C-alpha cells in the first residue's frame, strides 16, 4: 500500500464473490482506510480477471485485467479454495476477525458452503454481513442469476434510454451494479456503526434490482399516482426547452438546457443573436417547444462552428447550463475532474503505472485515497493469514499442505 487514508482505519472487511456489485463496496471502503480482503481461488478467480477486457497489452492474464483493477484497488487478495473443508474452516476463522462481510454469490450459496449468516454470527455476534445478488435472498426468482447490464433492462432504465422511435439503449457495462454497490456501501456502513455502538451485528439483504428501482423512483411514483407510463424521449425534458446535445466541431457535442425565458435570453445573447429572444416563435417555453426544430437548427449552427469546450465556456459565462459531452479520453483531461484528482495513477506489479478511479466525494479533514494498486491474485496470502488473521506458522503450513491456497 502506498498512501494513507484514515476515516475508516480499523474497519476490517472480507469479500466473497467477484465482478462489480460486491467488490466495488470493498473498494470504496478501502479508499477511506478500511482493510479489505478480496477472497478468490486460483481455480476460480474473480470473473473480472479473466472474462472482460481491457487486458494490459491485450494479453490475457489473472493480473492483467484493467476491469478487475478498476474495482479492486487498495485491497488485499487472498486465495482460499472453498470447495475444500479446510478452506471453509479458514473462512470461518476469518469471519471471526472481520467486522463486515460482503458477498455477492447467488442466493443460498453461502449457506450451502456453511458460511451463512446464522453460522457466522454464532462465531462473531457483532458481524455485519451484506449479501447482494440480482433479486435478493427471497422471493420466487431469488435463485435467478444475472448480470447488471441486463438487470438495467428489467429495472426500466433501458426502456427510458434512446429516441422515441428507436430501440431501447444500454448504458455502459453493469450500470445497475454500481447503484447497488453505492447503496450497499451505505447500508454496510450503517450496520457497522450500529454494531460498534451496540455490539449487535446485522444481516443486510440487498437486491440489485430493487436498488436500481430507487433511481427510477420518480417514474414509478408518477405511475402509482397517475397511471402514466413514461417512454424514452431522447434528450427532451418536460420543462426545459431547449434541452439537448448539440453538434460541435470535430465530432464533439455540447449539452445545454434553458429552464426559463431568462435562461433563453442569456443563450441568445451568448450565441450572438439577441433577436432570438424576441422572436415570436421562441417566446416562452411552449412556443420554443412548438418550433424546436427551427430553434435547434439555430443553436446547432452556432455550436457547429466551435469546439464543445469553447461553446460550454461561452454559455457558462452567460449563465447558461452547458457542458461538453465528455468522452472517456476527455475524462482524464477534464479540468474539473483533474482538479479533484478523479483518476490517480498507481504502480501495479504486472501492469505498471495505470489510473484508478476515486469516489465522487471526499472528506476535508480525513480525506481518502487510492491507497494502493489492485492486488495480484493471492499476493497477500502471507501477510493476511500470518499478520492479520494471526495463523501460526504451523497452521499456515497445514492449510498450504491441504491445498487451501490453490
Amino acid at each position, binding site marked *: 500500500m502506498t498512501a494513507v487514508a*484514515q*476515516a475508516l482505519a480499523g474497519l476490517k472487511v472480507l469479500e466473497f464473490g467477484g465482478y462489480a456489485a460486491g467488490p466495488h463496496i470493498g473498494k470504496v471502503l478501502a479508499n477511506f482506510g478500511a482493510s479489505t480482503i478480496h477472497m478468490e481461488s486460483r481455480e476460480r478467480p474473480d470473473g473480472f480477471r479473466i472474462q*472482460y*477486457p*481491457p*487486458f*494490459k497489452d491485450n494479453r490475457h492474464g489473472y493480473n492483467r485485467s484493467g476491469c478487475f483493477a478498476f*474495482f479492486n484497488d487498495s485491497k488485499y487478495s487472498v486465495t482460499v479454495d472453498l470447495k475444500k473443508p479446510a478452506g471453509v474452516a479458514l473462512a470461518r476463522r476469518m469471519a471471526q476477525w472481520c467486522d463486515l462481510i460482503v458477498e455477492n454469490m447467488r442466493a443460498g450459496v453461502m449457506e450451502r458452503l456453511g458460511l451463512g449468516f446464522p453460522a457466522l454470527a454464532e462465531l462473531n455476534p457483532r458481524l455485519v454481513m451484506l449479501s447482494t445478488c440480482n433479486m*435478493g435472498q427471497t422471493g420466487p426468482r431469488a435463485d*435467478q442469476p444475472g448480470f447488471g447490464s*441486463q438487470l438495467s*433492462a428489467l429495472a*426500466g*432504465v433501458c*426502456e*427510458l434510454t434512446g*429516441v422515441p422511435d428507436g*430501440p*431501447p*439503449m444500454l448504458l*455502459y*457495462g453493469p450500470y445497475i451494479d454500481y*447503484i447497488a454497490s*453505492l447503496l*450497499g*456501501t*451505505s*447500508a454496510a*456502513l*450503517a450496520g457497522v*456503526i450500529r454494531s460498534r455502538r451496540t455490539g449487535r451485528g446485522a*444481516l443486510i*439483504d440487498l437486491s440489485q434490482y430493487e436498488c436500481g*428501482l*430507487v433511481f427510477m423512483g*420518480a417514474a414509478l411514483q*408518477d*405511475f402509482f399516482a397517475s397511471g*402514466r407510463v*413514461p417512454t424514452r424521449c*431522447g434528450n427532451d425534458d418536460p420543462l426545459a426547452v431547449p434541452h*439537448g*446535445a448539440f453538434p460541435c466541431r470535430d465530432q464533439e457535442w455540447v449539452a445545454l*438546457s434553458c429552464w426559463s425565458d431568462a435562461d433563453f435570453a442569456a443563450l441568445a445573447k451568448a450565441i450572438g443573436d439577441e433577436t432570438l429572444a424576441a422572436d415570436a416563435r421562441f417566446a416562452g417555453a411552449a412556443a420554443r417547444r412548438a418550433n424546436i426544430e427551427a430553434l435547434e437548427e439555430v443553436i446547432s449552427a452556432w455550436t457547429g462552428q466551435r469546439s464543445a469546450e469553447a461553446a460550454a465556456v461561452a454559455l457558462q459565462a452567460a*449563465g447558461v447550463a452547458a457542458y*461538453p459531452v*465528455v468522452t*472517456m479520453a476527455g*475524462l482524464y483531461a477534464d479540468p*474539473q*475532474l483533474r*482538479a479533484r484528482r478523479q483518476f490517480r495513477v498507481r504502480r501495479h506489479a504486472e501492469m505498471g503505472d*495505470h*489510473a484508478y*478511479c476515486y469516489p*465522487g*466525494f*471526499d*472528506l476535508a479533514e*480525513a480525506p481518502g485515497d487510492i491507497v494502493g494498486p489492485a492486488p495480484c491474485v493471492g499476493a497477500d496470502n502471507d501477510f493476511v493469514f500470518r499478520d492479520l488473521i494471526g495463523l501460526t506458522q504451523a497452521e499456515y503450513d497445514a492449510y498450504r499442505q491441504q491445498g487451501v491456497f490453490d
Partner: protein
Amino acid sequence: MLLSDVLIIDATDRLGWLAGRVLADLGADVIKIETPGSDRSRADWRAFNVNKRILELDLQAPSDRARIEDLLRGADICLLTPSDSSAPLDPHALRSNYPRLVVVAIRPFGGVGPRSAWRASDIELMAAGGAMALAGEPDGIPVRVSEPQSYGWAGAQAAIGALVALSHRDVTGRGDLVDVSAQASVVTALSHAPAFVDLLGLEPTRAGAFMTGRSIKGARYRVFWPCRDGYINFIFYGGVSGRRTNEQLVRWMRECGAELGALAAIDWKVWDPTKADQSEVDAIEAPVAKFFARLSKREFLTEGHRREMLGYPVSTVADIAGDPQLEARGFFQAVAGVAERFCGSFAVIDGVRPPLRHAPGAPLAAVKSTQGEPAMAEPPRRAGSRP
C-alpha cells in the same frame, strides 16, 4: 433500525434529495427543511422525500434562524446543496460552529476546482460525467436516460460520505465536511470504460443497442431484441454462466422446432466471446432474433428463470409495478393516510424491510397526524429534470 439514533437535517434541493431518503431508509430521523410555499406536489419530490419529516422554515427570518441553529446543535449530519456563497446555510460556517456535525455539501461539480461554480442540470451532469458519450446510436446523438439519473448518483455517494464521516466521528468526536461532486459521482456509472483509454489507448463509444468492449477483435454483440410486446435483453456471454445460458437457449429453441442455423455447430464449452469476430457473432445471432420475435416479455422472463438463463425483458414501469418478485419481497409499500404506493426501503435488514415511517410532507410537529384521508387528491405534476 441501523441508524435509529442518528438525527439528520436535510436542506437539499433535487440534487441531494436521495441522500436523505437513503439514510432515512436505514433508520435515521431525517428532518427536511422546506421554505414556506415550496412545491411538494411533484412525483420526484414525493418519491425522494417520503420517510422524512418536514419543517417549514424561512432561513432568512431571525426566529427561524434560531430554530435551525437549535436543531443543528443536536444533529449528527446536515445535508446541503449550496448554490453559492450566499446560501443561508454555509458549509464552512456550519463546520466552525458545530464541531461534531458532519456537513455534506452536494454540488454539481463539487466545492473545489475551476468549474465548481458552473451551472448544470441532469443533462449537463450526464454529459460531464461521461455517461452520454456512451449512450445512443454510434452515428447518432448522445442521449441521457429520460429519467434523471445524475441526482441519484450524487445522492448515493453523498450518503456514503455522510456515514464515512459519521463513523470517523464516533472515534474522534469531530465531524467533517464532505464535498460531493455530482459530475464525479456520475463517473461511477461508466463501469470500466475509462480503463480502455488508460490501458490500451482505445476510446469506448456509443454502441446503440449493442455491447462493445468484450471482444478483443472488436465484435459487437446485440443486446436488445424485438419481441412480441416490446424488447428482450439478451447477450451471448462466456464463462460458466454464459455457457449454461447459451446451451439452454439452444435447447429451448430446439424444443420449439426453431431454426438453429450456425448455433447448431457451436460447442459452448470452448466458445469464447472475447475471441469471436463480427461475422461469427452475426451468424449465431440471426436465428436467435427470429426466435425471440415470437416470444412475449413475460414468457421470456418465466422460461428464462426456469432454465436458469441470463437475460431479462425490457420493462416499463407498469411491468415493474406488477412484478411478482417485488410483490413477494414487499418492495412497494403504503404509508398511512396516502393512497399511492412508494418504493420501500432499499435493503432488507435482519429479515425485515424497514417500513416507511412518514408520508410525504408529514410535518415535524405532527408526526402521528398522517392517519385519515389520503393526502393526494390529484395526480402529482410531471417532474421534469430540474435540479
